[in-house]
């Protein structure tokens, strides 16, 4: 059984014939070739698959593609500017080394951008709480939290807060 799913992904209108059981993450990766969105646990725990659907972060491994029919979807590939300039949150993750292996990073960045949209000036506790749906098995989260704080400041256009030495 198949159906037509149409949505706007990273500013482009796309339409594909897929099986109704196709997950949004599979639609993005396998049908659109957008492999920046990762499948980590595949059990709704780890958040490596987080994308934005109509501006809100969701786990694309726990969403059917057809549930996003007609929606506006942003993936990690859609965050940077057209000229390649990184989104402030991406730049902050690079600057503050908010990653080691990098597998969780796309989901972390997408969750962080959604968090800052709702709370432009998050405390460390807000950030840790806001990233509960994202698991990193390398870093211990310390630099991720620093990166999100710096990214939040940068998104506000404020000067990034000074960062304590390790």
């Amino acid at each position, binding site marked *: *059984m198949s*159906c037509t799913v149409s949505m706007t992904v990273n500013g482009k209108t796309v339409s594909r014939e897929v*099986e*109704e*059981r196709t*997950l949004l993450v599979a639609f993005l990766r396998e049908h659109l070739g957008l492999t920046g969105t990762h499948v980590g646990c*595949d*059990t*709704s*725990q780890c*958040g490596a698959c*987080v994308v934005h659907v109509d501006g*809100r*972060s*969701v*786990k694309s491994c*726990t*969403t*059917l593609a*057809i*549930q996003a029919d007609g929606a506006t979807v942003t993936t990690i590939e859609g965050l940077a500017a057209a000229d390649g300039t990184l989104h402030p949150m991406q730049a902050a993750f690079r600057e503050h080394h908010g990653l080691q292996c990098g597998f969780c990073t796309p989901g972390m960045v997408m*969750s962080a951008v*959604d*968090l800052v949209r*709702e709370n432009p000036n998050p405390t460390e506790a807000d950030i840790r709480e*806001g990233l*509960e*749906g994202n698991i990193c098995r390398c870093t211990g989260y310390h630099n991720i939290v620093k990166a999100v704080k710096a990214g939040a400041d940068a998104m506000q256009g404020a000067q990034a807060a000074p960062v304590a030495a390790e």
Partner: protein
Amino acid sequence: MYAFTYQRPTTVAEAASAIQAEEAKLLGGGQTLLPTLKQRLARPSDLIDLSGIPELKGIREVDGGLEIGAFTRHAEVAHSDLVKRVIPSLAGLAEGIGDRQVRNMGTLGGSIANADPSADYPSAVVALKGLVTTDRRTIAGDDFFTGMFETALEPGEIIKAVRFSRPDKAAYAKFRNPASRYAIVGVYVARFGAEVRVAVTGAAGSVFRADAFEAALAADFRAEALNGLSVGADGLNADIHASADYRAHLVTVMAKRAVEAAG
């Protein structure tokens, strides 16, 4: 995931007709159902997505409280200025469900229809004198949850909204599983004049009221009034996260915390 047919009706009547299909399932936010399907633990013939039905959505102030549409997502309840003003403890409960991505998808109706013994919302439905309106009738919150993953809903019955009464004071305190964020024990304490309701989730197969706690708090609405009281470990859940004795202990501790938070 096994194959299924997907439908997105735009009215409750259409959904009620579609759910008559053999082995059809209603789809709310999908945060429990989709993981279940991915593990091939269920094989519905049809998924009836309720997201396209306007009459199932929204939060309204009504006489004596709030009415929240079944297809209202946890994040909407958590961030609603109306809920924060009328029943702030309910907004707080919603803000503590799962993680932010789950809250962006999961719905009130989906949560209570699933009746997970560790879910948060059942405690609110019971503590806040909930009234569950379906396409067929209205069910009192006290009668809605009948067992582990069991409710008073008949096959094919669709929840339309839940009405919550506004308490004078209330709070929800939860000892959560740090990985899943489900309640190992959650206690919702609500005071309505001389009446106090104490609803406990996570501890047993289904949400229940702690009668002795209610009587003690009705006489003296202070945490100290619960000193020496216990719901007892008989019939409580025991698993790798907590023994029945530990859960019984947590019920008293969470109830005290809720009373203190209610002020």
